């Protein structure tokens, strides 16, 4: 390799680029990737935080996980929330975005603000609001009884099915506006002339939607899909604050169960908890990968 006195321009530029990237890269590596590695190492150990030892079969925590009924249930719950909530929310978001993108619509700003407003609430506070709304003596019960839909007050959060429904409703309420904003931004990037051309060609609303809006919004749809899956797999605040996992742990989510194993119930199973957390990470990674592959092939 020959040594020149100075670097050429390209090398200099490349060097400058790396300098710009360095702080962010370093921070992310230290705060995210390194903890991931150390989490993996911890997941192979057992014992309380003070004296951790290598698990006797090294995969002990991982095999234990699949025999743990409660953890399997928490996986089932999380995927149930995912399967029900994400499609409803995204369809609702796209519908709202479509309606709010109409150029003849008046009071657009008002409606947009209203729909987006739930996103401005903290997770804990909206969970508490929903908790009191759906309490046995709460507002929803009062309304339903007065309307004659229910004959007596119903304990929504005391029954596992209705508690799950309340969690899903709360999630939809909180996140629809958030996703709608992405769709709205995507829709505004589609030129109106494309729609006009479709109109001249005699396409009806349904055809325009599937033929123009969905294909052109596809990157946005995939992004919101990945983000929603990611968020739902890590669902924590709602489960903790709305139902506290109850009744009888029937609404617990994976993150909540991991938390319980770490700080929640007095037992500090750091090894076991990190093993479960690692599984969550793998799930999120796989789902994201599938999504990106699906998104790539058609473009």
């Amino acid at each position, binding site marked *: 390799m020959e040594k020149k006195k100075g670097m050429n321009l390209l090398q200099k*530029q*490349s060097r*400058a*680029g*790396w*300098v*710009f*990237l360095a*702080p*962010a*890269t370093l*921070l*992310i590596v230290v*705060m*995210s*990737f*390194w*903890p*991931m590695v150390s*989490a993996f190492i*911890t997941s192979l150990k057992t014992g309380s935080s003070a004296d951790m030892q290598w698990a006797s079969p090294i995969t002990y925590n991982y095999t234990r996980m699949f025999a743990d009924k409660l953890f399997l249930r928490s996986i089932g719950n999380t995927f149930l929330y995912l399967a029900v909530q994400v499609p409803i929310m995204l369809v609702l978001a796209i519908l*709202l975005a479509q*309606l709010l993108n*109409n150029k*003849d*619509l008046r009071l657009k700003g*008002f*409606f947009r603000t*209203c*729909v987006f407003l*739930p996103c401005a*609430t903290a997770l804990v506070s*909206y969970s508490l*609001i929903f908790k*009191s*709304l759906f*309490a046995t*003596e*709460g*507002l*929803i*019960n*009062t*309304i339903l009884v007065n309307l004659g839909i229910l004959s007596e007050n119903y304990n929504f959060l005391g029954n596992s099915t209705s508690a799950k429904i309340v969690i899903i409703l709360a999630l939809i*309420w909180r996140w629809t506006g958030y996703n709608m904003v992405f769709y709205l931004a995507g829709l505004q990037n589609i030129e109106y002339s494309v729609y006009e051309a479709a109109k001249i060609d005699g396409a009806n609303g349904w055809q325009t939607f599937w033929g123009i809006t969905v294909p052109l919004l596809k990157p946005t749809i995939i992004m919101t899909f990945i983000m929603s899956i*990611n968020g739902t797999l*890590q669902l*924590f605040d709602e489960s903790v604050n709305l139902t506290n996992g109850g009744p009888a742990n029937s609404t617990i989510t994976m*993150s909540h169960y991991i*938390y319980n194993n*770490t700080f929640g119930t007095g037992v500090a199973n*750091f090894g076991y*908890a*990190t093993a479960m*957390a*690692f599984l*969550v*990470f793998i799930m*999120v*990674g796989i789902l994201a990968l599938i999504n990106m592959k699906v998104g790539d092939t058609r473009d």
Partner: protein
Amino acid sequence: MTEKKNRSMIQRRLIPTYIFLAIVSFISVFPFYWMISAATNTSFDVAQGRILPGGNLAVNFQNLIGGQNLWGSMWNSFRYSISQTIIALFICSLAGFGFELYHDKKKDMVFTILLLAMMIPGVATMIPLF
């Protein structure tokens, strides 16, 4: 004349849209209203599902300020959020600038890897960071 007629026809066709949006907006905003009105009621009334505002606002605020270290915790929140925002803005705009202006194959790869970091669940890094 015809244009005016046309416009009112368009608005008339949008009536279902308006109704739908009004319902969605109501659902979105109602919990906020409820939170505000609950702030003016006693806990007993809140538990009973009282919708209308009551006269208990002053007492509730006194409890809020007297019951815990409100200003201290608010100061903590503000301190964290402000310093975090400034640092994040600085570092992220540096990185964004670097990625955009000097990008090549290697940096694009780093970009993808860094994006992966977004996927790492909070619970997974919680224990090592703790």
